[in-house]
Structures are given as structure tokens and as C-alpha cells.
């Protein structure tokens, strides 16, 4: 009985390991996209550093964010503007702050807000249910 259990456990464990392994190979490519994203966002911050509000720029191509989910960390009480350019028409919704605005196909919208609530907040294409950005507000 014990032996059977050991075999079962070992099999399950190895399946789990293989599973994690394949995740890792996936995430290798994930990591590269993340780095690209961070570089673009850093560029954004440096170019807009002169202006007061932090701009979070997202370009939506084919219904998903170019270069992966855009991540930006801001401090509490910062002025932030979420700028979304999209090739499809949808509603852009920022959760928590509950800001929403319609974007036309090929159009650009700006969602300005003051980061008064700490936490992590997702922006999404409302009708498609696709996450495009994550804004972290540090306390």
C-alpha cells in the first residue's frame, strides 16, 4: 500500500514539476515582454517628467495591449493620466477609481485621476473583458 502511494505521489509530483517547467519556458518569453514594457513606460515617465501628472500610455492592437499588460507604480496623491490609443472601439474602465470612457476605433482617450486610494488597480477593455494596464498606488 505504502509503495503504491509513493509511486502515485512521485508521479503526481513529477507531473507538477513538468507543468511548472513548461510554465517557466513560457515565462522566459513573458519576461522579455515585461522588460520591453518597463522600458517603454520608463521612457514615458522620463519624457513627461517635466509635466506634473504621470502618464500611463497603452496602445491597443487587435484588442490586446501592445507589448503586454502595461504596469506603472505611482505614489499616493499623484496626478495620473491613463492614455489609451485603440484600434478597436470599446469602453476603457479603470477599476476602483471607477473611471470609464468610450474609445472609438483608431481613437485616443485620456482618463485623468488623482491617486487617492492605495492598492493595485486594473484597467480593462470593458466589453471584451481584457486587462490592458495595472496601476499600483504606493501608500
Amino acid at each position, binding site marked *: 500500500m505504502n509503495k503504491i502511494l509513493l509511486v502515485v505521489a512521485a508521479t503526481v509530483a513529477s507531473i507538477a514539476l513538468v507543468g511548472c517547467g513548461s*510554465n517557466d519556458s*513560457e515565462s522566459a518569453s513573458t519576461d522579455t515582454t515585461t522588460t520591453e514594457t518597463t522600458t517603454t513606460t520608463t521612457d514615458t515617465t522620463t519624457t513627461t517628467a517635466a509635466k506634473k501628472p504621470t502618464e500611463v500610455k497603452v496602445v491597443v492592437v487587435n484588442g490586446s495591449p501592445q507589448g503586454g*499588460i502595461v504596469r506603472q507604480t505611482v505614489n499616493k496623491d499623484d496626478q495620473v493620466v491613463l492614455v489609451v490609443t485603440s484600434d478597436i472601439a470599446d469602453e476603457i474602465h479603470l477599476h476602483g477609481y471607477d473611471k470609464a470612457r468610450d474609445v472609438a476605433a483608431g481613437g485616443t482617450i485620456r482618463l485623468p485621476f488623482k491617486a487617492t486610494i492605495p492598492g493595485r488597480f486594473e484597467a480593462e477593455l470593458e466589453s471584451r473583458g481584457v486587462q490592458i494596464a495595472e496601476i499600483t498606488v504606493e501608500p
Partner: protein
Amino acid sequence: MRLLAHGIGVVRDLPIPAVYFYVGASLVLVVSFVLLFALWRRPLLEEHATGRALPGWFGRLVLSGAVRIVLGLFSVLLFGLTLATALFGTTTSLLNFAPTFVYVIFWLGIPFLSVLFGNVWSVLSPWRAIADAIVWLLELRGREARPVLEWSDRWGRYPAAAALFSFVALELAKVSPDYPRTLAIATALYSYWALAGMAVYGRDAWTRGGEGFAVMFELLSRIAPFAAREGRMVLRWPFTGLAGDERTRGALLFVAVMLGSTSFDGFSRTIRWQDLTSQVRAHLAASSHRTVDLAVMGVNLVGLVLFIAAILATYLVAVAAAEKLGGIRRSLIPDFVLPLVPIAAAYMVAHYFTLAVIQGQFIVTLASDPFGRGWDLFGTADFAPNLALVSPQTVWYVQFGALVVGHVAGLAIAHDRAVVVFRDTRRSVEAQIPMLALMVLYTSAGLWLLSRG
């Protein structure tokens, strides 16, 4: 509306700072060795599990038929409202009563009440109340309500584990689990499962083996300082209800679904998993909406199953090692299942505290306008939830505290059981090391998930 990791929600926690992770893991490690070498050498929990009987009138009141009927009616009413709003209310999930009620008030509230006050679900379950009413009506007409088929103990808790898995799969794997019409179908299906099961196998048998929520809330209620025993209420030390072994078949799988699903919920919030699903969507950009959602759900399901399998595998390895080190010839699988229950409770607190506190406030508004039609039944439709009610620091302390308390409780229960199991063996100290290692692994993994956010 997109799912926010756990069914519904608007704010997510900031990742817990790494220092909490190191402090928590080392704390549990130290406590485990103290328990191993310094503390009790004979079982303590079981003798305290009996507790002290509370005054007779208290038990008669709490367990009375009147309380049962009032709470039963109330819960059937709420159940009806949930089904009606899910079916006919607005499809904007945050403006509809059903999603917040199901994923926050019910799914987080009942475990909380169970841990504090005992098995409240036995009087709050709408399905149980409906079944009781049907039996009462049948008996009123002089007919006897008997199960159609005999329940077999071989099935144990496997049907309940399957039921719970379906719910967590809906909550964590499905895209848009908070869409009201989806919830309507799910509620109807689950009600059919609960009621048909009780009709076929009897109310008690199905409550113990088939109704997933009933099994889960009963397990959690063993943490509570209150319990009903032979028509009386007893007061006991918290966690003592988890002493002893758990010989019902499928109990391990059930607890693994509880633990695995909550930890997958944590993992699915990490950047790694978010980007993975985002990439799946980008790859399939040309495909239809339905195909993309199915693919994302498939990826999530694989993740969920892997987490449950990982819990099972690590537990089985630890048990096998303990059997070998202790020279025990029988299977020890049933002996260390219950120490996992406080850990499951701790994971729930750590992952869902913010959701409960923030999203829970919305029920005040939703109660006045459950269908999202602009009603104001109780004058609370304009109540503005405070999204900054708890500071990130408070959240971290709660998460950290819950995980450490849960794991220390789990360790103590496991140690108490080990004292019984390995009493006559020469290597009783060594034989406990695998289970302690398992507990430390679960704590570190839990804290790691919170620190990765």
C-alpha cells in the same frame, strides 16, 4: 466585466513586503522545533475537545425549531432574491445584487461565521431549509419521506469535493464569473445538485458527503469555540474540534481542493500568471471571443488542478516518510488531514480580507437596489463605500497574523496527533519531522505568494 482574480472585486492588495515572509517563515520554523522537543508528550487536544456545557436554556434557544424556521425562511428569501437578480437584474455585475452576495457575503461571510460560532450553515442553508419544508409537508399529509437509494460510505466526501471543485473552477478559472446570467445558471445547477442529492440519499447523508459547501463549513466550524452536542451547546478551546483522525474517504481530496484553490487564487494574481493569460489572448487575437475565453479558462483550469495536485503530492510524500521513519505499518493518511483545516482558514483570511472589507460594503447599496433599476428600498442606495477603509499596512498585518496563527495551530494539532500515533515507537521525534516540514513548506509558500502579489 473581467474577473479580478477571485470572482469579483475592485481593489487588489499591494504585495506583502519580503521581510514579513522571512520573519513568518522563521517564526513557524522555530515554533515547530519547540513543539517537537519541549512541549507536550501526551495528547492534550482530545481531552479538551469535550468542552464545558453551556446553560441548558441557551442550547434549547439556539437549537430550537423556532430559530431554525426563522433563519430558514430568511435564507430561502435571500436565495430567491439572489436567483431573481441573477436572472432578471442588470447585467452590470457591480450594480447587481447576486455577484457581490454570492462571492463576498456568502462565500466569505459563512466561513467567517463558522470559524467564530460553529456550524451555522446547518440552520442557514437554503437548500436544507427547502428540504426540511418538503419533508414537513409530506409528513403533514401522512406520508413518510424516505431516501430513494442507500448512501454508500465508500463514496465518502468525493461527491462533495467534486461539488466544491466546480464552484472554485467557476470562481477562479471561468472568464467573467461575476456575469449575473452565468451566476443564475450556476446557482440553478448547484441547487439541483443539493436538492436532488438530498431527495435521493437523504438529507443527512448528502449534507455530510455531497453538498460541498456544507462539508466545507462543517470542517471550518471545528475551529470554533462553540459546538452543539446532544441538544446542548458546549464551550471549548478553539481548534480542539480538530483533534483526532478523519477516516471519511475523500476527506484529504476535499481539503486539498480548499487549500489548492485559495493558493491558486493568490498565484493567479502574480505578474507571471497575468502575463501568461494576456499572451494567450494576444496569440488568439484573430479568433472569436468565445474561443479566446475558452482558451484562457483552459489555462486557468490547468493551473488550478496543478495546485490541488501539488498539495496532494506534498501531503502524500510527507505521510509516506512519516510512516517509514516511525515504522508504522498502517496508512497514516487519515491522521494528519485535520491539521490542514486551520491552514485553509488562514489562507482564506489572508487572500480575501480586503475583498470582504471593501466589496462587502457594496451590499449596503445593493440591498436598496438589488436589480440595478434605480430603486431605493431602504434609503441606502447612495451609500458610498470607502475604498481606502483599511490601510495597506493593516492588510499586511492581518495577512501575516492569519498565516502565522493558522500554521501554528496546524502544527500544534499535527503534533498532538503525532503523540498518539507514534507513542509506542522508539523514533517518535524523528517520525514527526516530515509533517513539520510540510507545515513549514505550506507557510513559506503562502507567504511567498503574498509577497509576490
